[in-house]
Every structure is written in C-alpha cells, then in structure tokens.
C-alpha cells in the first residue's frame, strides 16, 4: 500500500482533529445540557412557558319538554390597540362604526387617543374592563397581550403612557365579528367570552334567575344549581413562539374543560306562558301591587309554572331602574301574607281527622261569643248572615268565620297549632330557589299567641304564609293527606345528554289520613258550586278550592280598601291532576266592589284551568253515585 497522502503524521493529525471537534461539540453539549441546564431552562421557560385557561361552557337550563330557558353562547368583546392602527385602514372606520352600531365620532376618538396621562387613576373606561374578561382568546389577542405585557410601561415622547387596549363594544355576536374580521383592520380584535342568554326573556324569570356579567349567579336555579351548571375550567401548559402564539407540539400538560351539566326543570314553558299571560291580564285589569300564580302537580309536588307580577327580562336585568329592584324578588317564596279564609282548610281538616265531626253535626254561626278554657271569647264577624246552623260542608263552602273557629276549638288550641305546623306553616317548604321566608305561626304559650289568637288563626288571621306555603298546604288535601316538598328540578344531565340524577317526589310527612283528605275534597267541591268561588267552576269538571279575601294591614290597622284576594284549588277533585293558586295583592276591582277572592282570583283559576284541560288533556272524572257536582246542575 502506498503511503501517499495518508502518512502516519497526517492521518493521526486528521483523526485527532476530528476527535477534537467532536470532543469540543460534546463538551459544549455537556455544558449546555448538564452544567448550565438549570439556568438556561429557567430563562427559556420564563420566556416561552404559558398556561392557557380553557373556559368550561356553563350548562343549559331546560323546561320539562327540552325548551331552552337559559343557555351560554360565545360572544366577543371588541377591542382596539391604537398603537397598531394603520393610516391605510382609516377609510374602513365608518363601515366598522356602522357594523358595531357606534357613533363614528366616538369610535374615532377612541382610535385617535393613543396616550393617557401617567398619573391618571387606573379606573378609566378604557382600562378597567379588561381584567373582568374571561374566556377563550383568539390568536391575535394572545399576540396583542404579549405585546401589551412587553410594552405595559411604554411611555410616549410627551411623558404619557401609551394606550395598548381600549374597549369598543361588548357582546358582539360571532356573525357580526365575522364581518368585522372581513374588514381586516389591523389592531381591532375580539376577546371571546361566554355570556348567558335567556331566549324566552321574562318567562319563568323568578325561577330561572340570572348570571351577571362577572359570571356570578345571582339567584334562582342559576344560583341554586350552580354546582352542576358551572362545569370545570380546563388548562393547557405549553410553550409559545416569538409572536406569543402557542406552539402546539410543545404542549406538556393538558386538562380538558368539563362543560357544565344541564338542569331540566319541571316547569313547562307553555303552562308558564299561560300563567304569565293571565298575570298580564290581572295587571291590566286590576292594577294590583303584586300577584302570584302557581301551578303544580299535586301528586308529586313538582311545580309546573310559577309566575309573579311584576316581573322582568332576564336579558336586561342590568337595565332595571334604581329603586325598582324589587321586581326581581320571587314573591311566591319571599313575601308573606295573611292567607285568610283559605286557611280554614286547616281547621276543617283537623276536626275531621280527629274524628270530632259526627254525621249530621251542625254549628250555630250566629253566635258572637263562645266559652273556651273558662273564658268567654269574642268570635270574628261574618260577611254573610247565617240564620240556620251550618254543616262542616257549609262552613267550608260558605266560608263561615265563626264556624271555622268552632271547628278549631273542637280540636283544641294545641292540636290545632300542631295541625297548622304539619300543613307546613311557619317553616320553609324547601323550595330550591332563592331566600325563602318561614312565615309567621305562633305556638300556644308563646308571646305571639294571645287570648284572641285561637279565634283568629282558624280564619287565616294572626298567621302569615308565603303563597307557596299556602299552595302546598292545599296540596296536602289534593295528594291524599301528604305534605310534599315543592320541587322544580326534574333531572340533571351531563354534557353528553346522559341523565346523572333524576329527582322524584319528596314526601315530608303525612298530615291527614286519606279518608280525611277525600272528605275534605268533597267539602271543597262545594265552594265553586254553591259557595264563595262560583267563578272558578269549570263546566263538566269537579273543581275543589277555597277563596280567601284578607284585609291588608295599613299603618297598623286592617284596611277596608286594600285586600289580598286568593283562590287556591285543584281539579278534578276526585283525582287531582293540577293544583292552581292565584293570589292577588291589592287589586283594584271594577265597579268599586271590594277585591274578594271570588271576584278577582277565582275567574283566573277558571281561565287557567280551561287551558290546562286542553294542554294536559285532563279528562273529566265523575264519581259514581254520589257526585253532587254532576247532580247539582253544573254538568252541561
């Protein structure tokens, strides 16, 4: 072999050179990856590491048929970086102003204001809103944020701080934003946020509640079921490039967002609409201070509709004038009233359940005083004169005050109180929405119970209840003697539509026997037939219910001008399918008559009932033989 070029010396030198080069590279790699690793990685991570929060979508609130009562939709907050705006885009500004429905002058002023004084308080319109925005960000926003961070302290030549962010408009829809993007104005960008939308506006406003712009659920189901609805935000840990964009392949950890569960209510949007239409009619006709209508299934306690007057638009909660915030109160559970004659069902049911009523027993309702526990008690006055002694059925149907008191006295004040308590008065019903009132129910022997109480409480005075408490108390008779917890949530579903939890009827206690409930239903059937609630009668249907007309206490005295009128009932009486309560506070009746329950509330019961018969396909039920309703001439 010729030695040629490859002399020993040269070959060794070449080999050493190559090995030295590799050695040098290797040494440098060791230095970078082992010795200086910590310092270098820390610096790189600081510059490139990022965490993106992925907002979970809040679940929907649906009615029992799947209609959406509350949903989340993506909207954009439109912003501008005045430093990035280009002069060649100025001719597009008028079109942008038109798209976002903003006066051009105002928009141009924002665009041209490029600095602000350094000492200016950081609560100006242009720089306060940003921290409140949450949600998914667009790519260009991430880029802009990066620049903002870098230039946060940038100061212009005149010593003022540079404005890198100014809000143009809230709540831009995706469709509108697509048009804005098409304009291609550099420096105008949007930040995506989830905003709550209520497609049916005022429908079931007091039940559904709302989420404010900070994402805080204010009240109603939005607040009560927030745990299920809100979901769990996800996050991504990764790196960003020089322009602040995420480098997708360097995602190191990723926790996907879990969207919130959907809550299906027992509310039926159609029934709710019927109720709210009736409330609108009541408001237009009687100009009441407030009114409440509740419709429920008495066998399960599920609320089918609950409406209050006045009400409000859930999408415009922030436009309610100062001092008018009371319209947001769910008066069905937050306000109490003296139930008046409707409360007589407690005295009658108690006497019946205690087997104090003997067949053919009659009560003299013309007496003005009665002895009880060794003292003569003055009985309350009557609206009508009763010359003949009345049966229990007559006392209920004709709403005799003195008769009801005598029934309560038969039971005794302690047992009567226990029955009132068992019917649910003086305690919260457990309704899953809002701050519920206990009502007022004094116990014998306490400060609230005086010598007159036993003669006033049986007729619904000296006691106060929420409309829902009264509704559920009537439900005891309709359900066959059970006090049920009023429920409004039917089921919880996950984001995939699978049922996570289904609510069933919740029985709180048995109040009266089934036989007593059956007897009470017969008594209450007399009210629309021959009693005080004739306007509630529905042809061919057995309606059971009770009217109530309570004088309001104005300046510490019962007023003869201001009343709370109510009709609480259910039908068909022998197999109740719907319970309806109509409570109207301070109605102004036509033709100067006083606003009694029979005059203003009972007709509403009938109108709602007739519509429900069609909608729910409620068939008339006639009991064989002894149905006095059918025989009594109302059957047409």
């Amino acid at each position, binding site marked *: *072999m010729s*030695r040629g070029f*490859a002399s*020993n010396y040269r*070959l*060794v030198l*070449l*080999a050493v050179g*190559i090995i030295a080069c590799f050695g040098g590279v290797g040494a440098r790699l060791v230095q970078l990856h082992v010795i200086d690793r910590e310092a270098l990685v820390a610096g790189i991570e600081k510059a490139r590491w990022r965490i993106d929060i992925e907002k979970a*979508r809040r679940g929907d609130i649906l009615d029992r048929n799947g*209609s*959406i009562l509350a*949903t*989340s*939709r*993506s909207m954009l907050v439109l912003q501008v970086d005045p430093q990035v705006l280009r002069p060649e885009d100025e001719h597009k500004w008028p079109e942008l102003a038109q798209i976002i429905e903003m006066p051009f002058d105002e928009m141009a002023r924002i665009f041209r204001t490029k600095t602000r004084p350094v000492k200016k308080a950081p609560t100006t319109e242009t720089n306060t809103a940003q921290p409140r925005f949450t949600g*998914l960000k667009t790519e260009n926003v991430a880029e802009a944020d990066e620049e903002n961070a870098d230039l946060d302290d940038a100061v212009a030549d005149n010593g003022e701080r540079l404005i890198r962010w100014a809000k143009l408009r809230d709540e831009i*829809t*995706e*469709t509108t934003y697509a048009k804005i993007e098409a304009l291609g104005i550099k420096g105008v960008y949007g930040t*995506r946020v989830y905003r709550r*939308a209520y*497609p*049916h*506006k005022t*429908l079931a406003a007091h039940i559904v509640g709302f989420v404010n712009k900070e994402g805080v659920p204010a009240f109603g189901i939005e607040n009560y079921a927030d745990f299920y609805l809100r979901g769990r935000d996800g996050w991504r840990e990764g790196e960003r490039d020089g322009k602040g964009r*995420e*480098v*997708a*392949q360097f*995602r190191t950890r990723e926790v996907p967002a879990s969207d919130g569960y959907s809550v299906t209510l027992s509310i039926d*949007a*159609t029934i709710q*609409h019927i109720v709210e239409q009736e409330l609108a009619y009541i408001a237009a006709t009687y100009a009441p201070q407030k009114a409440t209508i509740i419709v429920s299934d008495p066998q399960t306690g599920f609320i089918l509709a609950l409406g209050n007057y006045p009400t409000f638009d859930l999408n415009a909660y922030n436009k309610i004038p100062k001092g008018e915030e009371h319209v947001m109160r769910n008066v069905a559970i937050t306000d109490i009233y003296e139930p008046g004659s409707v409360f007589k069902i407690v005295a009658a049911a108690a006497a019946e359940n205690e087997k104090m009523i003997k067949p053919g027993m009659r009560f003299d309702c013309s007496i003005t005083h009665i002895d009880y526990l060794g003292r003569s008690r003055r009985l309350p006055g009557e609206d009508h004169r009763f010359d003949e002694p009345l049966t229990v059925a007559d006392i209920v149907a004709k709403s005799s005050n003195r008769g009801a008191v005598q029934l309560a006295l038969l039971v005794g004040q302690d047992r009567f109180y226990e029955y009132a308590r068992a019917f649910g008065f003086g305690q919260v019903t457990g309704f899953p929405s809002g701050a519920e009132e206990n009502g007022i129910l004094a116990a014998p022997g306490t400060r609230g119970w005086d010598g007159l109480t036993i003669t006033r409480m049986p007729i619904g005075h000296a006691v106060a209840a929420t409309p829902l408490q009264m509704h559920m108390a009537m439900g005891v008779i309709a359900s066959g003697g059970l006090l049920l917890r009023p429920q409004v949530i039917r089921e919880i579903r996950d984001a995939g539509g699978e049922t996570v939890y289904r609510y069933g009827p919740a029985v709180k206690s048995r109040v009266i026997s089934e036989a007593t409930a059956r007897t009470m239903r017969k008594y209450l059937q007399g009210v629309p037939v021959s009693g005080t609630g004739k306007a509630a009668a*529905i*042809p*061919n249907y057995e309606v059971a219910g009770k009217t109530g007309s309570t004088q309001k206490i104005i300046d510490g005295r019962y007023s003869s001008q201001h009343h709370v009128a109510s009709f609480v009932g259910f039908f068909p009486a022998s197999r109740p399918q719907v319970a309806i309560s109509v409570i109207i506070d301070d109605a102004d009746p036509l033709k100067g008559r006083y606003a009694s329950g029979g005059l203003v509330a009972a007709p509403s019961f009938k109108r709602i009932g*007739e*519509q429900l*018969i*069609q909608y729910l396909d409620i*068939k*008339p039920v006639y009991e064989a033989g002894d149905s006095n309703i059918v025989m009594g001439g109302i059957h047409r």
Partner: protein
Amino acid sequence: MNFSSNHGFVNQLLVYTLVMIGFSGSIGLGTVWMRHQISVTANSNKQLDARIAMVERHLAETITAAESERDTRVLLRRNAEWNLGLVAPTHGQIVRLGEDPVMRLAAKRNAGLFGDTAPQTAAVYLPLARR
C-alpha cells in the same frame, strides 16, 4: 487490506467515523423530519380544534336564535303580523265523547251507503235571492 498496521487502523477509523457521521446525520435528519411532522400534525389538530370550537359557537348562537323565535310571545306576534289566523281551541269547542270516535265517524260517513237510512236532503237557502 492490512488491518494490523497503523495505516490500516487509521483508515479503518476514518471509514467508521465517516459511516458514523453518515448514520448520525441520517438519524438527525430523520429526527428533524419526525419533529416537523409532529409539529405539522399538532398544528393541524389545533386548527381542527379551533374549527370545531367555531362550529360549536355558531351552533350555540343559532340554537339560541331559534329558541328565541320559538317563544310563545314571538309566535303569537308572528301569527298576528302574518295574518295566519291561528287560534287555540276554546274549552267550549271541545266535545268529549264517551264512545270510540273512529266508530262514530265511520258510522256517520257510511250512513245511507247500504240503504239502511235514506240520506237527508240538503236544504239550501239563498237569502239574497229572495230579496
């Protein structure tokens, strides 16, 4: 080739070094290509995610708009605006039957078909013609 001499050893070393460089280069190029593909795939996934999210956002917006249009008040307004004249049946218009309505309607339709009962003569009045 003489493998025992120095030259042989150096030649061998050079050959192996060149082979190693070539092999390492191939591995390096392969790694770079693979990382590029990972990057392309990751970006493609990211874009797909973004598109899915965009479609979902548009879907949510459309569903909300559709639900708003399904509101009973809106439907009633449309009914009035478009003069559709649709009305819900009133309670008085409903007749509840105690028998099978199919049989009743069939009997009504077939009455007189087989000569069991004579068809009723229709009486037509023209009030305007009498004037």
